[in-house]
């Protein structure tokens, strides 16, 4: 029982990182842009948030928690959005190949993040020594009375309410994104751009503007995943062990798994989070067979990819123009 609750908690924590990444990428891909730079922008979001709060906390004697939150959030969003903007400029305005540009963004983002992360660690006097305790604490504050809620012996409060606000923010974002895509006119226009840009163009929709906005905002949202990981999961430190990158690719996988639907991404994220931590709780595993267990999320994604292409259900296909550039034909 306690094992299950612990796994549940880990699934939520890992799932939230993935969820942010995937939500941003869904928005991006709906515009027809396939940004393989998700890990890169997550790195950018994580390091920018950390740096901002580190500079603030070390400059002021009594840091204000609200200000800590605000500064790190803004920094994370801005840095990740900048990553998306670079991608947009290269692929939309300069018509560069999306795969190549995305992969470069991942290299670049990882480089920037680990460069500054390493420097921060040095400044702070060693790995794990970065002190942004106020910020990190602010991120991890939960609603204490709710946490103690129990149904019989079942610690429902701990399972559902023991997390920082970003866990709930991610779910809220998913709902907002789902409504935006399905119910609003702007969302409709965005979907048209990803499906059939020529038609959208003929209907008076600016394909370029939509792609720029969706990709930049999408990157900013993905960046929150990196921020959550640094602030909440590893409690405001920096570790150069590639977890963000691995989770970033899982986010890309989740986009496929969810068949580009934000609400599917929510449960999918916790499933992925759970699957990637399941090995910790499986009895009788040795260190090697644990590793095979960690393959699960990717295998599941491959299976979904195959099933989707087999069933050919139109609503589950990738946006028809995904990964392709668009420009008005000239004769």
């Amino acid at each position, binding site marked *: 029982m306690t094992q299950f609750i612990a796994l549940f908690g880990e699934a939520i924590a890992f799932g939230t990182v993935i969820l942010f990444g995937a939500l941003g990428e869904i928005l991006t891909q709906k515009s027809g842009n396939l940004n393989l730079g998700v890990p890169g922008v997550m790195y950018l979001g994580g390091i920018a948030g950390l740096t901002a709060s580190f500079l603030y906390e070390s400059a002021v004697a009594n840091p204000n928690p609200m200000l800590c939150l605000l500064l790190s959030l803004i920094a994370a969003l801005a840095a990740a959005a900048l990553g998306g903007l670079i991608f947009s400029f290269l692929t939309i305005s300069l018509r560069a190949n999306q795969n190549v540009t995305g992969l470069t963004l991942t290299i670049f983002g990882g480089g920037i993040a680990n460069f500054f992360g390493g420097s921060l660690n040095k400044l702070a006097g060693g790995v794990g020594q970065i002190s942004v305790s106020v910020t990190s604490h602010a991120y991890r504050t939960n609603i204490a009375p709710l946490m103690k809620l129990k149904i019989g012996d079942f610690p429902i409060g701990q399972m559902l309410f023991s997390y920082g606000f970003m866990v709930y923010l991610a779910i809220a974002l998913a709902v907002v994104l789902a409504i935006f895509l399905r119910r609003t*006119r702007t969302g*409709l*226009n965005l*979907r*048209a751009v990803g*499906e*059939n840009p*020529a*038609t*959208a*163009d*003929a*209907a*008076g*929709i600016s394909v370029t503007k939509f792609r720029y906005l969706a990709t930049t905002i999408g990157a900013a949202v993905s960046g929150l995943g990196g921020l959550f990981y640094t602030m909440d999961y590893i409690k405001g430190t920096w570790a150069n062990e590639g977890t963000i990158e691995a989770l970033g690719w899982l986010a890309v996988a989740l986009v496929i798994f969810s068949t580009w639907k934000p609400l599917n991404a929510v449960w999918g994220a916790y499933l992925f989070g759970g699957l990637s931590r399941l090995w910790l709780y499986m009895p009788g595993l040795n260190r090697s067979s644990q590793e095979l267990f960690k393959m699960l999320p990717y295998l599941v994604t491959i299976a979904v990819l195959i099933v989707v292409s087999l069933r050919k259900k*139109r*609503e589950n*296909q990738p946006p*028809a123009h995904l990964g392709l550039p668009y420009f008005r034909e000239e*004769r």
Partner: protein
Amino acid sequence: MQYAVQLRGVTKTFGSVVANNNVDLYIKEGEILSLLGENGSGKTTLMNMLSGIYFPDKGQIFVHGEPVSIASPKAAFDLGIGMVHQHFKLVDVLTAAENIVLGLKDKDGYKAIGQKIREICDKYGFVVNPDQKIYNMSVSQKQTVEIVKQLYRGAEILILDEPTAVLTPQETQKLFSVMRNMRQDGKSIIIITHKLHEVLEISDRVAVLRKGEYIGDVPTSEATAQSLTEMMVGRAVKLNIDRPEPVNPQKRLEVRNLTVLNSDGLRALDEVSFDAYGGEILGIAGISGCGQKELLEAIAGLQTPAMGSSISYYPPDSDKASNLVGKSPLEISRAGVALSFVPEDRLGMGLVGSMGMTGNMMLKSYRSGKAVFTDRKSPKELAQRIVSQLEVVTPGISAPVKQLSGGNVQKVLVGREIAADPKVLMTAYAVRGLDINTSYTIYHLLNEQKKNGVAVIYVGEDLDVLLALCDRILVLCAGRVNGIVDGRSTTREEVGLLMTNLKEVSPNA
């Protein structure tokens, strides 16, 4: 009387090609105007300038008497001009309602939108389910959505580009009754079509374009199929093309009941039957999109014919016929049936644009020999031979063929096919875009093949050439054989009528 739209002296050129030259055209309010013309006469280009896709090089457009400049599709919407293109501009995975409001700035919810769509439908007699996904719709339903979409956006002037090409006769009648209702309501409709009986049935006035020039207009009440055909095709031009008498014609191809379905499940070819003889040029005439492409591709093995179709090939050296249906393109071309098919997009199928001439020669021959490596020597020699024999203008045989001019690309393609020493040679639009001299070179080449006993199938669009070059002419209309006439005794008018007026029962030979 004020005109809904008036064009004055509109000219549009693409590179060196003049698509429209100094065209004047007007349409009144509450009028249905037919825009008539052969392929390539510039109808669609002209309409694209009204709908904001192209911008005229010269000339002025007036809408309701005001001079306007239509720089984008959106500007056209704002002026109340809506165009339904031949290829529908719809997003498949969205519903009818979603497609209809795409890009609009209003704040209506889907309930209000559905209501408004129903009002339009009731007013003019459409049937549209706003919640149906486009990919679940038939072609005619998609067309209806396109028209409703234009009306929803307040189109007062509606342009329909060959709307009946994809419809059954019943659906066409339904469309026409809707069009009459719209005219009643004061809307102006321009319909582009080739089908004369439809022109006579639906329109108030007919305007004719030929080779990019405006020929004139005539009230439909004063027109007949005969008079319109004359306006459309112009006076016969005497061409000085050789036509040797066929010597000892032998049956090479026997096509029976050939039916091909297109991706929408409609019959692109409908029970086509004919024979082709060695030593003869068989012309195929027809408005574009009447099944020429499917016919040639089916013979070459690139299309799968429907059940019951048969294509028999009689090789010259034996009397055993072989059935080509179900064979791969490779097997068919090895049997000696060469396809020199030049689709609208020249480089789409027959050639690889980024490769040089040598590489393109290799497309046919690269498998030859047992070696792992391609033999580049003989294709290179072939390329050089073609360059000198057909006077191909190219910076060099290794220059990518996409850099060559259209005529030279054509020469490369035709030259390669002839070099394969075929028994049946099929060409489509072999002289499209070529200058006179080059065209004569191609005719000469085809005649050479004919004298060598090859069965030549020539799909063409210029009636004068078909009449001067071919021994027999098969006329396709809406995927059916509408007649096979003798090239020496027929007239332009006879062929023109066969192209545009589908006989009730097709005279399948």
